[in-house]
Each structure stands twice: as C-alpha cells, then as structure tokens.
C-alpha cells in the first residue's frame, strides 16, 4: 500500500511526492485520485460478470430518518443478510459523517462502509484544509458524487443507497437527503426511509410522525417504525432483548451529532413492547376490539 510516500520517478526517495505539494484542492478524493487512484472504490476496475449465487455479499437493510423542530433523528436496524441467511446481528449502519451530520446505508454492506469511510475523511479533510466546514448542501452533493461513482458496481448488483441527514447551521433546522443509484439527490420533507423494509417503515412514519414533536418522541417514533419494518420484512431485525441488541439511533441538533445510549433505547423499546403487548392482550379478550396486534 503506497500510504507512505513512494519515491517519485526522478525525485528524491522519501520526499513527499508531487501530488502532496500541489497547491489548492481541498478534496481528499481528488487528491487520492491524482496520487493513487487504486485506493478509491471507483478506481478499481472489476471484471465483467455477476457473483455466483453462493457468494452473495451481506446486505444492510432498513434506515429511517425524521425531523423534529430542533434537528433530525436517524435510526437503523442491526441486521445484515446474505440471501436468506442472517449474516450479522450487530452491524451498524448509521454513522456520523462529521460533527453536524450523519449517514445511514442500505445495500451491499462492504461497499457502503467503505463509501462512508471515504465520505467521513472527505469532510474532515476539507474542514482541516479550508479551516471552515462545508455547507450541508455541499456535503450532500459530495455524497451524491460518490454514489454516482459506484454506478458501475450497482449495475452488477452491488448497489449502495445512502440516506443523509444533518443539521443545517445556516438554516437552523434538520434536513434529510435521499439518493438513487445514479447519484440523484432529493431533499425529503419530514421523514424518509431506505432499504428493504422501507415500505413498511414509511407507512409507520406517515402515521406516527408529528413535525412538532420533541426529540424523545422523535426517537420513539423512529424505533417504532423500525419495529414495524422488522415485523413484516425478514431482512430487517427488531430489537434483540435476549442479547441486548438495539437499533442504532443518532440525533443531530445544533450541538452536533450524538448517539442515543443503549440504556435509554432499552427503555424506549420496553415501553413500545409493553404497549403493544397490552394492546394485543386487550384485543384477544375482546375479539371485536379495534386494537391492532
């Protein structure tokens, strides 16, 4: 790996190669592309063809995001699937992108995690070189470029679809951006979900999301939407009370990114399950009752 500067042709060994010293340019991706493109996901040519059925890579699934008056909440379940198998029970799909934004991933897990790593470095790199933070739209556009760079792989079945959310320090509100595999970027109003369980999660969000709710209610809504998705989608995992595995829930507000701690999530999940258990018991007792299980 040429992370240590390799001797440039005709230059002094050990000296930082020319691309390091080119003035201007605050994009890490552009710099790596000029120095060693093979380190970039898009810089590695792949042979044509598709994967054998037994080699299917893990897929990460449902992510939900919703805004509340002080910011935005994003949550992701913890399951990765390979075909009909559960590949991982504790995978994390919601990451901080920088101090005031977060990104959730659905699609081929390996490629998605690499994309997130590159995106994180890209934002931090800009911040250090320029001495200022990118605007939220600027960050969303950078991610758009990265998704578009993955189009070749997406055509071979290895698609990545991120969901990006952050606190807009200029507009003082939380915002959500969704993407398609061609890099199309769309701002969402209020709430959105991506991944295999997104249809069910979106239905739940439509009913539960109140734009005026506080952060605690927003977190509870996100968790409930994930549970609804897990109820109907086999590739989405609910909370695993036996092992103590809960969804990853991130809150981004004016103070920045923070992850909701697990003990707080455990309370949210317990309240949700208690309410549903009581509702279901009530429904069994009165067969004509209107409470859904």
């Amino acid at each position, binding site marked *: 790996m040429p992370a240590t500067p390799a001797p440039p042709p005709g230059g002094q060994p050990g*000296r930082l190669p020319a691309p*390091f010293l080119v003035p201007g340019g605050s994009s890490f991706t552009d710099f790596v592309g000029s120095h060693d493109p093979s380190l970039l996901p898009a810089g590695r040519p792949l042979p044509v063809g598709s994967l054998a059925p037994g080699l299917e890579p893990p897929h990460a699934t449902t992510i939900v995001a919703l805004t509340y008056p002080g910011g935005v909440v994003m949550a992701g379940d913890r399951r990765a699937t390979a075909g009909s198998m559960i590949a991982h029970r504790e995978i994390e799909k919601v990451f901080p992108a*920088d101090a005031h934004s977060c990104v959730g991933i659905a699609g081929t897990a390996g490629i998605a995690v690499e994309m*997130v790593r590159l995106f994180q470095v890209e934002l931090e790199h800009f911040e250090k070189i320029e001495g200022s933070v990118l605007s939220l739209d600027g960050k969303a556009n950078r991610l758009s470029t990265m998704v578009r760079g993955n189009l070749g792989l997406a055509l071979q079945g290895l698609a990545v679809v991120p969901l990006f959310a952050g606190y807009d320090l200029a507009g003082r509100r939380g915002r959500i951006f969704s993407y398609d595999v061609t890099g199309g970027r769309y701002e969402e109003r209020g709430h959105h979900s991506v991944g295999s369980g997104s249809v069910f999660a979106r239905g739940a969000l439509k009913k539960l999301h109140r734009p005026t709710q506080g952060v605690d209610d927003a977190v509870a809504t996100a968790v409930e939407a994930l549970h609804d998705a897990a109820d109907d989608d086999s590739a989405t995992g609910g909370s695993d009370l036996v092992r103590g595995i809960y969804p990853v829930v991130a809150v981004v507000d004016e103070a920045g990114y*923070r992850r909701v701690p697990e003990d707080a999530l455990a309370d949210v999940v317990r309240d949700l399950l208690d309410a549903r258990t009581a509702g279901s018991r009530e429904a069994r007792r009165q067969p004509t009752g209107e409470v859904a299980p």
Partner: protein
Amino acid sequence: MTQPFYVSPEQLMRDRADFARKGIARGRSVVVLCFDAGIALVADNPSRALHKVSEIYDRVAFAAVGKYNEFENLRVAGVRYADLRGYSYDRADVTARGLANAYAQTLGSVFTTESKPLEVEIVVAEVGTSAEDDQIYRLTYDGSVADERGAVVIGGAADALAGVLADGWRPDLSLAAALALARRVLASDPAAPASGPVRELGPGTLEVAVLERGLPRRSFRRVGGELLERLLSEQDPTSDVPPSPDVLAPDAAPGHPGLPADAPARPDGS
C-alpha cells in the same frame, strides 16, 4: 566559451543556510510547550485567518514560522499525508514521527537540490496518553530534526528566547501558567531576554491552540475570544479550558463523533 565559477560545496551550503536563516529570523516566534493536560501552541500572530498553528490529525498539530506560502504548502501536504495514512490503515497509525520524517526528507531534498531552500521552521507535536508520551519535533530548513522535550520556541530570535523558556518551564504547569510563560517569552526583547517583557501582547495578537490529552478522537482545539482573555488575565481564576463541549465528547457517546467504531457507553463502563 565561458567557464562557470567554481564554488566549493561548503560555501554553497553555507550561503543557502544563511539565506534561509535570515528569512526565518525576520518573522515572529512561535512557542510550543507541554502543560499538565496537553500541549499548547502559541503564536505571536495578529491575523485571525492566516494561521501559524493548525490541526493535522487526531493527536497531531503543526506550527510553523517563515514564509507563509511555503509552510502553508507543507501544512496541506501534511494533512494529505495524515488523512491518506489514516484512510489506508487506521486512525491510530498516524504518528507525528512518520510525518516529521516525511517533512525532513522533503526539506532536506529541497535544500540540497533546488536553487532556493524553503525559508521555514516547523514543529510537529503529538499529544500522548501521558506526559511522557508527548512528542515535539522541531524541523529546520535543511531537513534536520530535533526531538524536543517539554517546550520549544522557533522563529524570530529563537536562540535568544530559548533560555527564558527553559528557565520558566515545568512539566506541571496549568494552561494559564503555560500561556503566561509563552506570552512572556514572545514579548521579550531578544537583545536582553532576561530583562522581562518589553511589548504588550494581548489576546488579540496571540494565536493559541491546544492538543487536549485523553480525547479518543480529534484533540485539537483553538482557544480564542473570551476564553483566551480569561486565561490570560491575572485576576481571573480560570486556569484551564472547560471540558470539551458536548459536540466533541458527548457524555453518552464518548469521543468526538466517532467513526464506524462509535459504540455507546455501556452502563457498566465496559
């Protein structure tokens, strides 16, 4: 046919060194010193936008004197080096020593092969998990590296001021005491450094940043505005920076916004 004059290698190197040294001595100094909870970088720099001290990586900072365009170019190269290394391997694998080596090779190679040496002097500092692990490397225009202990002053009349700094420095200084010492050093008259400060250096003319010890991620913080005024004031009891704001180290999820390994704190502390 004209014959080029013969210039002995000694003469050539001496001329280049004199040239670089003069350029560096014209500027103002920068002081880098350890205090009880990290490393402070203090520059005599009235500009709010053109920085002399900057962040390179999680625990690594950069301070420079000399020609702005030349050290800015090296700073950007350092950020690229560190980010590329952290991206290819892991964040823990970016060290001040590796960066100092890369800088030393670059400075040395420019000094010997190009017509003009770089008129810069650089400090690369890394805050460790304990005071013994702190590293401060001083790099000069010809690529030589010095591993400094505790405190160092570069640029301007650095040789004359080094004595004042060495006399006043102790490993257990609080941040306020360290800043007071740095201010005294920067304000001293190089002709008579022992006679005390001869200039008034206020918060507006000092650029201050710290590398805080013990943060899991980005530890570089600029100190300015009201906080710097309070730290520099002799009446005010503030002697340390307040704990990092929640953005940098949220109670619930310790550390700067983490990377994929950003696990929440467990109640049992594991």
